[in-house]
């Protein structure tokens, strides 16, 4: 089929961390010992399997996410990158991002990670003072975190760091100061996430038992969100997605693939993928449990636990769910018009939550903080 080849990325999930953070519901595990030389071939097997069914895809990005991929040995990272480069045709400016935790151990590895092929890091700073880092259960101090940010900016052309806000006891003024400091240190990209209390995490349990005091109420967290837009706009790092900010041209191309409905192969425990094969869009999912995934790859040469072809309805809903998060919204041809409630659509436009023109459908500034409600209404 001679249709356009979608943008294509590879997601590599490394599921291990030094400690489990109390708010985190990512597929992350603390193992006493991980023999990385035994894990490497598993990833290589998966790359081979995925590439065999996507021979015409052109790889544009690789993303090492976690867990804590900065705990990976640089040589393991390097071999995975080499395998990917060998398995697919690649674009000239392949973006290769790795998520890093900012302890001194990891900062010391940046240079060898760069030599391994990584050209962008995203660092989990999370908060800018030590009390807050302690409440988040982080293993690093803010001094270490800034040292890691400095080191990354020295080594890599592109880097970003993450902050979590709307935390316990944080006021609007606190956040203003924190964010201003962060903006003064940012190198073109920042991810700013409001703390989400997830079921099945330590915070989730505490919250349910009423033991997680000091969280901002809806109005305060809405104000924090607005303040974030205001300060980042002023600093020249507007939001290009709900929680991601960049100077023009510094957007994370890998994540844009998710939001813009591109293809991605997901390998590693719990990784998800979306692949367009013979005109059909397939959703894949790997075994969540690291040992289970390892066994599956070892014994069957395949870590996939599920894969299904998405219906056109599914594709449409996903396009909307992901696409409206991006500043520029969805191009008209990707909007699932047949699933959209016309009355709600018109009403949302009339009331200033949505904007529509020849280029497509997008949220207004007023609509962005309530994007979930907008989507619910559009699909009702």
């Amino acid at each position, binding site marked *: 089929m001679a249709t356009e080849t979608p943008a294509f990325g590879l997601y590599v999930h490394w599921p291990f961390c030094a400690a489990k953070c109390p708010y985190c519901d990512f597929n992350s595990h603390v193992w006493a010992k991980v023999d990385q030389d035994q894990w490497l071939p598993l990833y290589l097997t998966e790359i081979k399997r995925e590439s065999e069914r996507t021979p015409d895809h052109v790889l544009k990005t690789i993303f090492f996410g976690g867990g804590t991929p900065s705990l990976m040995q640089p040589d393991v990272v390097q071999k995975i990158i080499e395998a990917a480069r060998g398995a697919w045709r690649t674009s000239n400016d392949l973006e290769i991002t790795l998520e890093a935790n900012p302890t001194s151990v990891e900062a010391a590895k940046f240079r060898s990670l760069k030599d391994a092929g990584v050209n962008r890091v995203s660092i989990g700073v999370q908060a800018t003072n030590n009390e807050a880092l302690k409440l988040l259960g982080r293993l690093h101090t803010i001094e270490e975190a800034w040292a890691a940010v400095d080191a990354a900016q020295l080594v890599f052309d592109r880097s970003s760091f993450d902050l979590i806000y709307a935390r316990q006891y944080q006021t609007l003024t606190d956040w203003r100061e924190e964010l201003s400091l962060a903006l003064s240190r940012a190198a073109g990209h920042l991810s700013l996430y409001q703390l989400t209390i997830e079921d099945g995490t330590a915070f989730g349990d505490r919250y349910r038992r009423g033991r997680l005091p000091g969280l901002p109420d809806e109005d305060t967290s809405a104000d924090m969100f607005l303040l974030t837009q205001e300060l980042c706009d002023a600093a020249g790092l507007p939001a290009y997605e709900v929680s991601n900010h960049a100077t023009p041209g510094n957007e994370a191309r890998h994540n844009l693939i998710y939001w813009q409905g591109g293809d991605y192969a*997901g390998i590693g425990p719990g990784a998800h993928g979306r692949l367009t094969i013979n005109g059909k869009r397939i959703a894949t999912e790997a075994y969540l449990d690291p040992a289970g995934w390892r066994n599956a790859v070892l014994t069957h040469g395949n870590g996939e636990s599920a894969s299904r072809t998405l219906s056109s309805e599914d594709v449409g809903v996903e396009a909307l769910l992901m696409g409206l998060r991006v500043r520029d919204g969805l191009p008209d041809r990707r909007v699932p018009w047949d699933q959209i409630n016309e009355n709600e659509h018109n009403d949302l436009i009339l009331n200033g939550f949505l904007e529509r023109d020849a280029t497509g459908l997008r949220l207004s500034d007023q609509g962005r903080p309530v994007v979930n409600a907008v989507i*619910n209404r559009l699909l009702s």
Partner: protein
Amino acid sequence: MTELDHIRNFSIVAHIDHGKSTLADRLIQMTGTVADREMKEQLLDSMDIERERGITIKANTVRIEYPAKDGETYVLNLIDTPGHVDFGYEVSRSMQAVEGSLLVVDATQGVEAQTLANVYQAIEADHEIVPVLNKIDLPAADMERVAEQIEDVIGIDATDAIQISAKTGVGIPDVLEAIVTRLPAPGGDRDAPLKVMLVDSYYDAYLGVVVLIRVVDGVIKKGDRIKMLKTGGTYSIDRLGVFRPEMTDIAELGPGEIGFFTASIKQVRDTRVGDTITHEKKGTTEALPGFKPSQPVVFCGLFPVDNAEFEDLRDAIEKLALNDASFSYEMETSAALGFGFRCGFLGLLHLEVIRDRIEREYNIELITTAPSVIYHVYMRDGTMIELHNPADMPDPSLIDHIEEPRIKATILVPDEYLGDVLKLCQDRRGIQEDLTYAGSRAMVVYDLPLNEVVFDFYDRLKSVTKGYASFDYQLTGYREDNLVKMQILVNDEPVDALSMMVHRDRAEARGRAMCEKLKDLIPRHMFKIPIQAAIGGRIIARETLAALRKDVTAKCYGGDATRKRKLLDKQKAGKKKMRQFGKVDIPQEAFISALKMDG
């Protein structure tokens, strides 16, 4: 058939948890009526829901054979009754069917409101009463104080009160002896025309309707043609028996005896508690005194959360009604809630029991609308309308006056909480009728409007007294008051399921409380929503629910597409549990929660 002087019929009167069921178990066990290995706890409480709530809903009977110290064997019939205010009439019928009562009082707690209400019924039925002090195994038991209390508060001699522990079995033989020596044998004439009292009835999937009876005069036999005096129904007895406690067939039952029969009766509705049963031919024409049909006093709408389940709900309600003549229903349609039923109950507990059974046994999620009592609306043209549903309220300009049902409430409460109880009763438009002391406890009697009590009075009472108060009531009659219909408007649309009758003087406070509650119960929408209370066209309270300001998932990566999709589907399912009023979604819990008052 047993000779009259070898029969003793009795009931057990007790406040909840004072040990009635445990004592009944011991009596059954010690007389060998049930082998030890078949003994399970609370033999007489049958349904799950009763067990969970610790109440016995239907009257139960058991026949015990007891070889007394005088060398003779006696037949002891125990009738166990619900004891809850909702079933006051059923209790009074059961009391009429026996000659004596064991008055069981927990020796660690003393006399409570239910003890009083039930013992008065026993006194009214002319019972011989044997006081029994239970739980003497507990260190906190104070037999002397409690005996004194029985004398002071109830006014019966407690010098010969029997001290027992229903748990360990201490004193049980004394109870059995006292039943024989202190309670009277029944009277009755075996040669007179048949006269049988219908004590209760229930539906059994295999046997059809099972009727519990007490023979007053004459003899009833298997195969007899019988007639019910009130309903006029005629039947022939298929099966006659007694409970031991399992059903055991018997050839005949004579005067003074208690048992059951089946007669191919299709539904419980065809049997009326308190009715008189006689032979079809040459029967008595004289009915037993005191019959009254049971009348629902509390009404509410039951609607399926999922409109598609309406037929299932109809089915469930019809099935339950087969076994419960005191529960009434008719179809109701509501603009907002769709199709459902307006149901009448004997009281709030009765309502909850039925609602829980529908939800649990038939798996139908329900929206319950505001409970309402029956108002008597007197019209200018001289007619009177019984109003069961505020939605049916006639045009106020046509109304002359409205009367509401009142109750006499008896509350027993430790001194230190008296002030809070008086305030609660006063706030609920109560008129104090009596206040006396018994030791460190006060007994207050209030005349209260039933509509102030049906919703959450008991919950509030429990909370202001930390559970130490006990409460009972009796309906006394109707009285005129300044009553109005209050409507709730959400986003300017009236929500009929939330309208209610209130006293004019309380309308503002009630309206404000409702609006505040609803403001918390209704989720924020993308626009701001006025919530108002109104009488006629006049707004008496108003709150504004602010518009939604934040509803956004912070992080959303590759794996989250699937997750977000699932969340969306879940929200859609959640939306089914909401009801739409104009553009506003109201969650089902709101209908009940909004009515709960905090003061």
